[in-house]
């Protein structure tokens, strides 16, 4: 983060900082990414270039394929066709170790908070208890180190997930509705942690239904509709002047065309 720059500006600033369109500056790219299940495409020919640094928000209606897109980009699911490139190379399991993902529902081992972070570090060959303690301190959970992870509150559990992710100093962090169903204080705490990570150089790609959060944090928005990329634009441009009709409908809180048909038939 530069002098005088706020955390939020750090999250939104990447479009200014990075030469868009230069392949060497893309942390992650995908070309014609397609994923089929049951004979129909759930992700349909998406091409994206995610530049280094800053925050990209992925938004869209329920069932549009946002979470699936994140899983594909992270390499958790093998695409039916298309390619995913990490700094210009085909994404491999080794590259996945440079990334981290926080899921909507925290996945915590039946151990105490500290041991969860220790486990995450050990999976990367890092056996450093102090680093795990430091990660807990950074997310404000130093006092909860010895408590069973599964007995922490929802907000604390999600902060613990972030500690597990950030302890590994990932180059890219995926957040899949990480703040859904949390109270405003917990959301604010998590946003602070995410902005700190971005200021430290981590690229964040987040799925969210919270448009306020997308406006507050993201530098660019990717809008997904029925498995396709309907629009990708800088945040201000997307919210002030959405180009696609479906994004306009979404921002105005209207039901998309396909849902209206179903409702009138019911």
């Amino acid at each position, binding site marked *: 983060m530069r002098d005088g720059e706020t955390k939020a500006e750090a999250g939104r600033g990447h479009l200014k900082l990075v030469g868009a369109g230069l392949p060497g500056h893309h942390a992650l790219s995908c070309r014609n990414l397609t994923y089929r299940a049951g004979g129909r495409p759930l992700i349909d020919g998406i091409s994206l270039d995610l530049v280094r640094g800053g925050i990209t928000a992925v938004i869209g209606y329920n069932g549009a394929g946002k979470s699936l897109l994140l899983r594909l980009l*992270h390499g958790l699911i093998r695409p039916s066709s298309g390619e995913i490139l990490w700094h210009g190379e085909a994404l491999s399991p080794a590259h*996945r*170790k440079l990334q981290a993902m926080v899921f909507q529902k925290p*996945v915590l*081992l039946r*151990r105490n908070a500290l041991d969860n972070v220790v486990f995450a570090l050990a*999976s990367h060959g890092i056996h450093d208890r102090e680093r795990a303690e430091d990660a807990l301190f950074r997310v404000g959970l130093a006092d909860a180190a010895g*408590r069973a*992870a599964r007995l922490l509150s929802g907000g604390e559990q999600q902060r613990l997930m972030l500690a597990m992710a950030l302890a590994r100093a990932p180059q890219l962090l995926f957040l899949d509705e990480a703040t859904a169903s949390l109270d405003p204080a917990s959301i604010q705490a998590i946003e602070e942690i995410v902005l700190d990570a971005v200021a430290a150089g981590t690229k964040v790609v987040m799925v969210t239904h919270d448009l306020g959060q997308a406006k507050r944090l993201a530098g660019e928005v990717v809008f997904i509709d029925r498995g396709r990329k309907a629009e990708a634009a800088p945040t201000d441009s997307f919210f002030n002047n959405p180009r696609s009709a479906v994004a306009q409908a979404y921002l105005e809180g209207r039901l998309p065309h396909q849902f209206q048909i179903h409702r009138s038939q019911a």
Partner: protein
Amino acid sequence: MQDFARAFADSFRQILALDAGFVEIVGLSLRVSLTATLLSCLIGLLLGAWLAVARFSGRQALIILVNAMMGLPPVVVGLFVYLNLSRAGPFGWLGLLYTPTAMILAQTILITPIVAALSRQVLEDLHGEYGEHFASLGLGRMGQVRAILWDGRYSLITVALAAFGRSVAEVGAVIIVGGNIEHLTRVMTTAIALETSKGNLQLAMALGMVLLVIALAVNGLVSSLRLSASRLGYA
């Protein structure tokens, strides 16, 4: 009814007297069953964890086979071990027939599928919960097996208990391969069968009571352990 009450009282007195022969039978039963449980856990837990984590062609068929083997008839297992260990059998040269080792072997074969099948179910559920997290961490298969075995430890203790229960109460296989030889291979279940057939209800009932107490004590211990672990957020 009076005879039954008297037999019950006599049995109780026999337990309290801690007669050397009685203690020997109980001790051998526990030795055989605990050793068989330990061995079956070593094999069955690893097999169950591997089946829970690995994906390969024929996996479902192997799961069905392991599940079906939970219902192995003890006498058939006893006969199988007997044929292998008898002088004319392939392992007759080991001279293990009618020894506690043969009984341990038979019980291990009998209860390993129980451990494998039950642990596979427990660990597959756990792996379903952790799977994406493990994949995101880039954790290898062995790392996943180690993690779910550790995290599922309280549920797996119950699996081990089920195996021990089956083992300590089993009579068909151990009587075939052990022969119920006094001071050598006589265990609680074979002694109960023998003494009942002889009409010596006092010893049979005393051994039966010990069996019940062991089952209740182990169950109580495991239940309280699981309850504490659950309350503390570790199960």
